[in-house]
């Protein structure tokens, strides 16, 4: 019986052989130069690109916030016109929620995932490149309009009818609507990629109960995206139709105004979990490294992650408690929103127990993650308060909610992300970040954040509505707003220290070595930075903490990283079963190609055509999209698409 190239039994060999490494280097190293830069499908390059782009948006969104915090520092301040203020706060929300918070997590996952699961790339590398290019295109698309004065001006949740043409005649909302649909394509393609990678590319032996914690958050969030994003893409497309084609999806009498809110929040509430669960996964992954013991309650935390996401689809109406829905139906959503605290409590007590039972290593990552546990709790309890229906009738749309959303987004996203940067920067660059500057970085951010954002809770309890461009004196909010503004500048200085540390450490940080933290997962078994092929031979793991085996009481060394499957007949990876991760197929990985970039340009041209009503451009973009897809899917011999690869 002949054995196909997918089913051959690969040799098992020592991965340190120089000739094997040279051969793999030739196979996996992309082209150099500008074309190589544009055509790469290497997850490590794309991951770093994602992270850098997302951090750029973080800086831009932060500067926007500082400008309007000056406006709000004192009553009756008129630094900005109302229209400028509205565009700034809306663009700030759009930037932080859509262009920073999720893409930065995607970037870390794109970089780290194949390394922690013992793979050489994501399952669909070209799709990965497409996701990134579309994200960049959507970001530029939406910002181009802001720069010429047509940024979104209806807040990030963009309620109709204010977003309709009757009340918002400029192109602002068309840009936001089309930009969000474009970004949705990026999110969806990324989501599919993570789910497939999680199911099929874990190295042999990494059964479902041995998956590193960092992957649980990301795979849960991305599985959710596949269900959540269609609601918002549809909503924004319908809004665009209402505005441009005379349809009546959301008009008051022919259509239904509240339909917008349902469609938006059916997406956006799950999205809140989407932008925190992967960050919680980062903490569950690396906190144990700095407490020198495995995470308490691995299974409970993993299942809690999934439970949070599932429940997260059943609570969207708590954003609509004041819309006059029947109290009996809203009370269900109120109870569900209170119950969703339980799986989060599982995670909190698991982290606290991990710290309590371990011994801390005071690295900067640990400071960020321990601080995060406190911020997570604070964000959680303020969310629990808004979940109570009658209380929410008072709290909603005040600064209390502004405080809550910032504790969620900064406390549960920015703090873990910066902690994770300290943790994985050495793997990405081969250099350690400066620990002394890191401590300054943490304390400035932590104190500045709480100084700035904690008082917002009180401002909200004293009745300050959100989204007002100025306020009269005598409302009891003056000092609180001044403190908030001061705190936000201190916090911004802390973020600046982080970027200074990144630049300094990138230039002249200490050499990291393969495993500077003595961490247990597979990415630390390869060099820093990793070679283009990640692992010379595919490892076989035997536990949750491969590199700690033999040192944890009661464990023995069984994981094999030094020798393993040799896959060198072209760019190859091993495909494994979804539950027990037994090797069952050899997968061919595509070479670098310009087709994702070209497809992205074609799709973007289509959207620009729709925006400007340049129908010729729209049709050309659509045609180019079709041609690019044909090119993409044209059968290729090296991928085994024209004939079975032979067993060499």
């Amino acid at each position, binding site marked *: 019986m002949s054995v196909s190239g997918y089913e051959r039994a690969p040799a098992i060999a020592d991965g340190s052989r120089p000739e094997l490494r040279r051969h793999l280097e030739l196979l996996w190293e992309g082209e150099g130069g500008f074309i190589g830069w544009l055509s790469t499908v290497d997850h490590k390059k794309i991951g770093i690109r994602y992270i850098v782009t997302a951090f750029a948006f973080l800086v831009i969104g932060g500067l926007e916030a500082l400008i309007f915090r000056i406006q709000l520092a004192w009553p009756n301040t008129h630094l900005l016109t109302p229209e400028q203020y509205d565009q700034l706060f809306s663009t700030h929300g759009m930037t932080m929620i859509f262009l920073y918070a999720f893409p930065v997590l995607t970037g870390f996952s794109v970089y780290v995932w194949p390394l922690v699961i013992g793979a050489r790339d994501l399952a669909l590398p070209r799709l990965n490149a497409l996701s990134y290019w579309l994200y960049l295109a959507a970001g530029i698309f939406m910002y181009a309009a802001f720069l010429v004065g047509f940024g979104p001006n209806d807040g990030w949740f963009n*309620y109709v009818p204010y977003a309709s043409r009757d009340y918002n005649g400029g192109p602002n909302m068309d840009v936001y609507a089309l930009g969000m649909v474009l970004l949705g394509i990026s999110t969806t393609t990324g989501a599919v990629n993570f789910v497939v990678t999680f199911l099929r590319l874990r190295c042999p032996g990494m059964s479902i109960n041995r998956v590193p914690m960092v992957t649980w958050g990301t795979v849960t969030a991305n599985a959710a995206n596949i269900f959540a994003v269609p609601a918002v893409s549809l909503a924004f497309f319908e809004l665009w139709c209402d505005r441009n084609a005379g349809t009546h999806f959301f008009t008051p009498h022919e259509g239904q*105004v509240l339909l917008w809110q349902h469609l938006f929040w059916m997406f956006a509430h799950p999205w809140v979990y989407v932008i925190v669960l992967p960050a919680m996964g980062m903490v569950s992954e690396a906190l144990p490294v700095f407490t020198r013991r495995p995470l308490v309650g691995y299974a409970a935390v993993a299942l809690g992650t999934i439970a949070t996401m599932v429940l997260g689809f059943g609570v969207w109406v708590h954003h609509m408690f004041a819309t006059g829905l029947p109290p009996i139906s809203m009370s269900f959503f109120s109870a569900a929103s209170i119950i969703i605290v339980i799986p989060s409590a599982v995670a909190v007590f698991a982290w606290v127990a991990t*710290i309590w039972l*371990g011994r801390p290593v005071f690295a900067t990552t640990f400071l960020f993650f321990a601080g995060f*546990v406190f911020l997570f709790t*604070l964000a959680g309890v303020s969310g629990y308060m808004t979940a109570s229906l009658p209380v929410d009738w008072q709290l909603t749309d005040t600064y209390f909610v502004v405080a809550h959303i910032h504790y969620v987004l900064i406390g549960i996203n920015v703090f873990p992300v910066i902690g994770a940067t300290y943790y994985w920067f050495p793997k990405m660059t081969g250099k350690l970040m400066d620990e002394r500057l890191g401590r300054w970085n943490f304390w400035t951010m932590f104190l500045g954040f709480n100084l700035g954002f904690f008082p917002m809770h009180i401002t909200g309890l004293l009745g300050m509505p959100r989204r007002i*461009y100025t306020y009269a004196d005598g409302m009891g*909010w003056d000092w609180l707003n001044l403190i908030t503004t001061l705190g936000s500048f201190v916090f911004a200085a802390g973020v600046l220290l982080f970027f200074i540390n990144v630049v300094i450490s990138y230039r002249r940080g200490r050499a990291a070595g393969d495993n500077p933290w003595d961490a247990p997962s597979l990415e630390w078994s390869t060099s820093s930075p990793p070679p283009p092929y990640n692992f010379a031979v595919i490892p076989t793991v035997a536990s949750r903490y491969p590199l700690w085996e033999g040192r944890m009481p009661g464990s023995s060394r069984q994981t094999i990283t030094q020798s393993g499957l040799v896959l060198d007949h072209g760019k190859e990876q091993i495909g494994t079963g979804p539950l027990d991760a037994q090797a069952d197929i050899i997968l061919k990985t595509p070479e670098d190609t310009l087709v994702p970039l070209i497809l992205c340009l074609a799709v973007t041209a289509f959207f620009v055509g729709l925006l400007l009503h340049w129908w010729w451009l729209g049709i050309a973009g659509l045609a180019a999209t079709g041609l690019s897809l044909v090119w993409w899917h044209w059968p290729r011999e090296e991928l085994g698409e024209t004939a079975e690869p032979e067993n060499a």
Partner: protein
Amino acid sequence: MRPLRARYGLYAPAMAGLLFAGPAFAQAPLTYLTSNGPNADAIRPLTWALIAVSVIVCLIIGGLVLAGVFRRPGLALPEPGSPMEVGPEGGGLSWLWIGVGLSSVVLVASIVWTVAVLAHIARPPAKPDTHIEVTAHQWWWQVNYVADDPALDFETANEIHIPVGRPVAFKLIGGDVIHSFWVPQLAGKTDLIPGQTNEMWLEASKPGVYRGQCAEYCGIEHAHMAFVVVAQSPEDFARWRAHQLQAPPAPTGQAARGAEEFQMHCGGCHSVSGTQSGGDLGPNLSHLMQRRTLAAGMLPNDAAHLAQWISDPQNIKPGVNMQDPKLSRAELSDVLTYLVTLQ
């Protein structure tokens, strides 16, 4: 002296914070930590209870994290080539059982209290005998008092009078975009949504002027969309209501000239009962001078502010739908003389 200062240096800001939070709390007209009517009264203790639970949870978790970090000396960063010790896998699950178990009890209790409050305020304690329709416009409030006999209906704006001690029923109508009706001292928010009519009730337990505010972002002057609720004794309220039903007195002299100019320049948008000014794009001005504020709670209502407002609305409230009527100095004087007769 110096060590003492150093030592108390950290506490000073916290103390100052507490000291100032006290008075601020009493002086914030939109706070809901105090309340003045049965609807808001039912919500307030639940709000305080949830605040208390939240503060306690943060103190416990924060304390456990700090204690967990400092209860044993920390370890130095790992050195290359010398692997550190690692604790055992497993264990610690009792933390989850106890922590999550206790949390669940508190959460279920919160649900029970929430539903109880909800049931309590879902309907007014007695059948309301005052019915008010509020229509929200960018950026002002149209207020219609509705009676069984249509002859007793009348319209006013930005100021709602109610009798003390009686529940008042509201119908809330969205005139253009979504707004939210909120008088924190009396009740929580209800949105006004175009295409649907929402209902709510509130009641004031003592006389006073309670500030209200649009709480849903509604465009560039969302910040300046306030109103007041004036709670009066039932007798005063009846007098006010009767007065609102009367047409203003016929103007004479300069005021009569002002009335003509008003009708020409302003009557397309504003109406005054008993005259031919019948516009419905802006607030009804029939008894303008009885109101406490101008421009939806933005300015005190007196002749000087009225003059400022009429001559430069776009500067005072940028983006407002009212345009500068471009009155000459004499015309402005006439119109003002007329308007102050609208008692």
